[in-house]
């Protein structure tokens, strides 16, 4: 691992993502990627008594399926790193506890999947071990409960609002397989004074632009060097803002720029306004869409840039603006 700039690293011995799994809810299964998820849970309680446990269950199932597809048991895993949106990251802690795997909980709001990946890749390249799990997840109901209003409360959502994805993704990093984690840039917290908690795309777009700029500069790359550049959950408005912010700097995101939140639902038919969001959004799309294409070689080089809004209901009520962050992970097909 080598520092190539402030916050930017290239991996000397690129860890590989060699197994993965995603679990998604009913609404997600009705979206354009419904067929791609490893497992669908149509019951919003996932057989549990409450939404917090349900969210936790989504993540433990994703981990279980990921382990299953790798053929390894939990004893062979050196560490698990992951997070979610709930207070104290309980969904992940409760999901991981029964596996008995050494655990590092991370919180980066919806950028968590990228943060977990960077943590895991850095540990592996640093010689920590052979196999590390990285995961993230979210649940629409538990997120509404924590960040907004009770589910049955009758309110209208503004056009800029986004729909928290019910789902989780888990990936296994090691030193076999065809998808390498070749570089990463850790984002700087960006705050452009946005205060509207119903407009996450507007708040997060500058963080995305900032991290992409840094990553491209440090790696002497341009957007067209990648087969695809993904933001996590900027939504349709945030995407436009990101394009515009980067265009001002002479960086043109072309047709190879996508947003997991914009893609995961059919925005016309599924009534999700600006798109999907939540830790589970980037995590499930990574597993259901991005990794398979990299693994098959259809894509050779991809930037996976998950974005997060680092707010809490308390800071919103106190009138604070919304600090945001984006971390980017460069993934490459390696024969």
């Amino acid at each position, binding site marked *: 691992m080598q520092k190539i700039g402030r916050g930017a690293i290239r991996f000397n011995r690129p860890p590989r993502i060699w197994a993965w799994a995603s679990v998604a809810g009913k609404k997600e299964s009705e979206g354009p990627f419904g067929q791609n998820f490893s497992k669908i849970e149509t019951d919003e309680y996932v057989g549990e008594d409450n939404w917090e446990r349900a969210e936790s269950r989504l993540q433990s199932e994703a981990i279980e399926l990921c382990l299953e597809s790798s053929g390894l048991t939990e004893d062979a895993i050196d560490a698990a790193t992951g997070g979610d949106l709930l207070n104290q990251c309980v969904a992940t802690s409760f999901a991981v506890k029964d596996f008995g795997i050494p655990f590092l909980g991370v919180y980066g709001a919806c950028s968590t999947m990228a943060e977990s990946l960077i943590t895991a890749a850095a540990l592996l390249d640093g010689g920590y071990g052979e196999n590390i799990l990285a995961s993230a997840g979210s649940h629409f109901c538990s997120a509404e409960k924590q960040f907004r209003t009770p589910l049955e409360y009758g309110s209208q959502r503004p056009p800029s609002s986004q729909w928290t994805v019910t789902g989780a993704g888990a990936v296994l990093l090691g030193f076999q397989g065809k998808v390498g984690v070749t570089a990463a840039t850790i984002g700087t917290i960006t705050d452009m004074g946005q205060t509207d908690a119903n407009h996450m795309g507007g708040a997060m777009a500058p963080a995305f632009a900032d991290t992409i700029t840094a990553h491209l500069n440090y790696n002497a790359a341009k957007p067209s060097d990648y087969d695809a550049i993904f933001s996590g959950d900027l939504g349709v408005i945030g995407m436009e*803002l990101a394009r515009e912010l980067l265009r001002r700097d002479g960086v043109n995101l072309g047709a190879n720029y996508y947003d997991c939140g914009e893609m995961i639902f059919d925005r016309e038919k599924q009534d999700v306004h600006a798109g999907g969001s939540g830790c589970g959004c980037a995590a499930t799309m990574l597993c259901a869409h991005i990794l398979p294409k990299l693994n098959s070689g259809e894509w050779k080089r991809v930037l996976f840039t998950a974005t997060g809004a680092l707010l809490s209901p308390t800071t919103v009520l106190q009138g604070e603006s919304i600090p945001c962050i984006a971390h980017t992970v460069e993934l490459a097909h390696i024969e």
Partner: protein
Amino acid sequence: MSNISNKEYEKMVEGYTKNSPIFTDCLKAFFVGGLICTLGEGLRHFFLSLDLNETLTASSVSISLILLAAVLTAAGVFEKIAKFAGAGTLVPITGFSNSVVSPAMEYKTEGWVTGVGAKMFIVAGPVIVYGTAASIVAGLIYYFFMR
């Protein structure tokens, strides 16, 4: 990313953000709200026909609408109507009922005392607090100056 001031960025965000369709939202709210009030009026005539006096009738109408909204909230229907109607369901007493029942349902998992009991008024609480306070002020004004 090159320098862009918060103000400039705010303008950019506004440029890309569609506002809620205020006009159609108002129309929907007007009609659904009006429909609820018509229902209330119907109930009023019904209770008056039962020989209830005006005061009892007024209370009975409110209670009936509160019950109806509570049942619809529990059945998961209210939220769907409110999504369409907006202020049309929020402003009448149905909105108040929904704002108490929905957190009560949501926090049942945290227990009857610390969940339902403590969280039931997280939405409606301010209305009760400031509604009561305002009624006291109005009462004092009436008592000292208008009686």
